[in-house]
C-alpha cells in the first residue's frame, strides 16, 4: 500500500446545468477526500475549468481520475504534476492590528509580497497569492497577532509551457 499524498487535478467540463453537482456528488459517492475545489469560466464559453486537490494513495488517485473521466459532462481530466505546473491560491486574511502589532504585520505582508487591501482602526485585510505552502507560512507567522478570519480560494493550476489542457478542434 502506497501512502497518502496530495495531488491536483484539472478538469474541463461542459457548461451544462448540473455538471458541477454531478462532479461534487461523485466525491461523496466514492468517498474521495477533497481538499479544495475551484471552478471558473475559460476562454471557451462552452466549458468551465475546475481544479481539485485531493489526498489519497496511488489507488485512490487513479480511481478519482478514472471515475471523473467517465462522467458525461467531463471533456478532459489531467493530473497536474508539481514540477510542471503553476499552482496558485488566493488568500484574504483579516488580522487584528492595533498599536505596535500593525507595523509587524505590514512588514510581514511586505516580505511575503502581498497587498494590504483594507484597513480599520482594529484590523487590516491582506490579499496574497502564491502556492499553498507560502500562504500557510504567512498564516503561521501572523497567527500570534490574532487572525480574525480568512478565506482561501483553493488552488488553480495551469501547466507550464505552451501546451494547453483543452483545445477545441
Amino acid at each position, binding site marked *: 500500500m502506497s501512502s497518502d499524498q496530495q495531488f491536483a487535478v484539472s478538469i474541463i467540463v461542459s457548461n451544462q446545468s448540473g455538471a458541477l453537482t454531478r462532479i461534487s456528488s461523485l466525491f461523496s459517492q466514492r468517498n474521495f477526500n477533497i481538499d479544495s475545489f475551484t471552478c471558473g469560466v475559460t476562454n471557451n464559453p462552452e466549458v468551465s475549468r475546475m481544479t481539485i486537490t485531493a489526498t489519497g494513495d496511488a489507488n485512490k488517485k487513479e480511481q478519482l481520475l*478514472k*471515475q471523473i473521466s467517465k*462522467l458525461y459532462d467531463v471533456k478532459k481530466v489531467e493530473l497536474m504534476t508539481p514540477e510542471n505546473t503553476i499552482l496558485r491560491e488566493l488568500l484574504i486574511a483579516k488580522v487584528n492590528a492595533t498599536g505596535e502589532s500593525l507595523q509587524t504585520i505590514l512588514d510581514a505582508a511586505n516580505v511575503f509580497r502581498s497587498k494590504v487591501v483594507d484597513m480599520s482602526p482594529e484590523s487590516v485585510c491582506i490579499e496574497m497569492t502564491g502556492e499553498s505552502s507560502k500562504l500557510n507560512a504567512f498564516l503561521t507567522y501572523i497567527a500570534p497577532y490574532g487572525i480574525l478570519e480568512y478565506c482561501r480560494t483553493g488552488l488553480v493550476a495551469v501547466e507550464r509551457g505552451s501546451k494547453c489542457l483543452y483545445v477545441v478542434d
Partner: protein
Amino acid sequence: MERSGCQILIETLIEQGVTTIFGYPGGQVLNIYDELYKNNHRINHVLTAHEQGAAHAADGYSRASGKVGVCIATSGPGATNLITGLATANSDSIPMVAITGNVPMELIGSDSFQEVDTFGLSIPVTKHSFRVDNVENLAETVQEAFRLAKSGRPGPVLIDIPKNIQLDKTEYSPTGIAEKTPDPKPDTALLDQALEMIYESKRPIVYCGGGVINANCSEAATTLVEKTDAFMVCSMMGLTAMDNSHARYLGMSGMHGRFAATKAISECDLVIAAGVRFTDRATGNKKKFASNAKIIHLDIDSAEQGKNIDATLQIPGDLGFALNYITSKLEPQKHPQWEETVNSYKNKTKDYTAPNGCLLPWEVINAVNERATPETNIATDVGQHQMWVAQYYNFKNPRTFQTSGGLGTMGYGMGAAIGAAVATGNKTVLFTGDGSFGMNLNELATAVSQNLPLIIVILNNGVLGMIRQWQNLFFDNHFIASTLERKTDFVKLADAFGATGLRASNPEELNEALDKAFALSSPVVIDCLIPDEENVFPMVPPNGSFDNIILK
C-alpha cells in the same frame, strides 16, 4: 413541421424503436399521456401498480431483450418512486431510459405542488441524467439518452422534462435511431500478452460476469473455455454466459457459490475475467481471492480495472473483440490433470432429502426446471430463494435470468418478471420469497391486466430467510424481525387479484400445481411451503475465503 414537446418526445421514442413503455400517469405527464393515447397503435403503454414496478419492469424488459427499457412517471412522488428501480439498474449496468415530468420551469425552486429535485435525486443512481430546459433540445436529448444508455458500459439515463417544455413548440424532423457508439478496441499488444499467459497456464478459469451478457458474448466466452480447456466460473450476473449443462460450467462462486466453483477459483493458476467487477460478495477476502493465480481483467470500463482487484493484466475495451481475438489466435490447449481435479470437486455437496415428505427449496427449483424450456425467463427476488435459484437452476440461454445482483433489491422480482414476459412473450417464472413478494405484490394486478404467462413461485418459509440465516450463524439465534408472523393467504390473495392461486406443501402437490400452471398462459401464484430452518450452503462468511467455507 411544428410540434409540441410531447409530440416530439413520443415521435423520438418511436424513432428509437421503442414499442412498449411502462409507467404511471400524474399531473405533470398528462400531456405526454395524451400523446400516448393518440399514438396507441404505434406504442404500447403498460400501466403498473406503482412507479417502482414500472422501473423494474423496464429493467427486466431490457435484461430479457437487450433493448433499452423505458419507463415514465410524474413529478414528485412519481419520480421518487422510480429511484430504487434506477439504482437497481445502475448497479447491474442495465440500459434504461426513465422519463419524468416536472413542474413548469417558472415554478421550479418554489416548492410547488409535487415538486422535487428529480435531477439531483437521480445523480448517484443513474449513468447520467438530463433536464431539458428548451424544447429545441428535446429530440436531441432523447436520442443522446438512448445512445448513452446502450453505449460503453450500459446504464440507466433519466430525462426530466418540465411541463412548459412539453407544451412548447418547435420544428421537428425525424433523425433516426441513435446508434450505439462503437466500443473502443482493446490494445492487441495486451491481448497478445494475454495469449502468452494462457499458454503458460496449466489450471485456467474463465470468469464471466454481467458484462458478457450485456455485450452478447456468450458464444465467444464458451469458445474461450473450450479452446483454453478451462472451466467457467460466473458471478451471479454472469450465470447465463454459458449453457449450464456444459461439462465445463461450474456456476457461481463467492459467498453462496457452488463448492466446485469456489474451490476451482482458489486453486487455479489463471483467471481470465470478462465483464466482472470483483465485488465483495463475489470475492470474499480480496487478498485470498484466487491467490495462486494471475488475473487477466477484460472490461469495457477501465475504471473497474484496479478498483477492487489489481489484475496482472488489465485490458480495457470491447469485450467481444477481445474474446474473439484471443479465441481466433489461440492454439487449442489441453489440461487433462486440471480437468480431472476439478471434476472431482463437482457434486461434492450432497443435497439431503426432505424428512417426512416436506418440500425443499431445490426440489421446487428442479421441478420448475424440468418443465421449463431454454427460453423460459427466470426472475427472482432477493434472499435465500435467490441464492438457491442461482445455485440450482440450469440455465440454457443468455438473458433468461433477471435478478438484482449489485443492489440486491427485494421487491425487484414482480416488476422484472412482468418486463421480461412483456419483452419476450415467453413463459416467465418468478421465484420469490414471502418477504420479497410482500414488497411489491401489488404488481400482481399488472400481471393480470396484461394477462401475462407468469408463474409466481413463492418459496414460503415464513421468515426473512436470509436474515434468519445470518442471525442463526452470526448472532446466536437472536431471531428479531425475521419471523413473519403473518396470516397472508397467498392463494386467496391471488384469487382476489384475479390470478390463479395454488398451494403445495409436498412434492406431489407441487407437481400437480406446476403441471396446472405450465398449462395455463395467465398469471398463477404457487404458494410453496418450505421449512424455515433451511440455510443456504455453501457459505463463505463475509470477508472469508475458501478456507472458511461452511458446507452445512
